[in-house]
């Protein structure tokens, strides 16, 4: 606190100032809390017909999504954490004979201009997806051979097929560009690049 503000007879300015702080900060705080987790009710989402009598039978997004780990963009859910931490356990197959393939292999992508390197984690993807969702139609099974560019991604190709449509949107640069070119660790993990050991197939 500065002496100037405590001086007696500072007059209206001081009052205006304290008023602004007293009102502004709590409102800001309340605003931030309120803005954390807003799911539009179905009847107001400009998509569902509010005159449909069955609309009341549908689940409201807030009811289900507010229970899951929070994230700002997209569905306001961190789906990777929701799955890893067991908040949800979506089925992997409908038919008993289907093969469930999970691969633990990170791919480092370095054609990034002045951005951080991209780490593509197979693990988190193959928990959700099958190999055939990406190989060979979207990506070749050989690191460095697919001509991925940011422009193509923004057009909805490569990573943009899912990111920006269903998976977390493209505004989250750092979640993909997660490795600083000059650091030894990557992301929040302390592991050094390249990871040691041969790629392993889980399950």
């Amino acid at each position, binding site marked *: 606190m*500065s*002496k*100037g503000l405590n001086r007696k007879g500072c007059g209206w*300015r001081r009052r205006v*100032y304290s008023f*602004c*702080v007293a009102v*502004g*900060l709590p*409102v*800001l*705080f*309340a*605003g931030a809390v*309120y*803005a954390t987790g*807003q*799911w*539009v009710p179905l009847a*107001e*989402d*400009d*998509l*569902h*017909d509010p005159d*449909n009598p*069955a609309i009341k*039978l*549908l*689940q409201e*997004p807030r009811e*289900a999504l507010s229970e899951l780990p929070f994230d700002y*963009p*997209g*569905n306001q859910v961190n789906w990777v954490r929701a799955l890893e931490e067991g908040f*949800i356990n*979506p*089925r*992997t*197959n*409908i038919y008993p004979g289907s093969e*469930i393939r999970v691969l633990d292999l990170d791919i480092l992508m370095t054609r990034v201009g002045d951005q951080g390197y991209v780490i593509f984690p197979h693990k988190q993807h193959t*928990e*959700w*997806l*099958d190999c*055939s*969702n990406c190989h060979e139609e979207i990506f070749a099974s050989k690191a460095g051979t697919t001509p991925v560019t940011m*422009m193509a991604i*923004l*057009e*909805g*190709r490569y990573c943009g*097929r*899912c990111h*920006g*449509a*269903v998976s977390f*949107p*493209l505004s989250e640069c750092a979640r993909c560009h997660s490795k600083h070119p000059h650091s030894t660790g990557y992301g929040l993990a302390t592991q050094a690049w390249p990871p040691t050991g041969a790629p392993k197939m889980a399950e």
Partner: protein
Amino acid sequence: MLTNPEKKHLIASSVLFGILSVWLVLSSPVAAEYADVVLNKRAEKEGMRPVIFSHWFHRIRFRCKVCHSELAFKMRAGANEVTMADIIEGRFCGMCHNGEVAWSVENCDLCHSGKPGLESQIKGSHETGGPGIW
């Protein structure tokens, strides 16, 4: 000791703070849930409301690979030629909405729940405003 311009600055920024927070509260998005899909190639022409499929609801229960690999839904809004006859015969949505995995087709209004006039599309896609090729 704060000089006058500094105080003005403080006052101005706290007023801005206030305005910003009010704006934050009022600017609640009026938009469909991210990744909701509208299917309306035929429905409305045949007198039914457009169909709304929500990814958030289904991905809580099924991984992507169930629909996009096992059940072979193409990953592109509008790319699957879904008809009601197919569904009743157990293809597309009908692979689950058959009274076994999920409730069956007689609940028309649960699927046909969209506002009239919607086009087939995915909502909230490519939020960064890229050109979009679909």
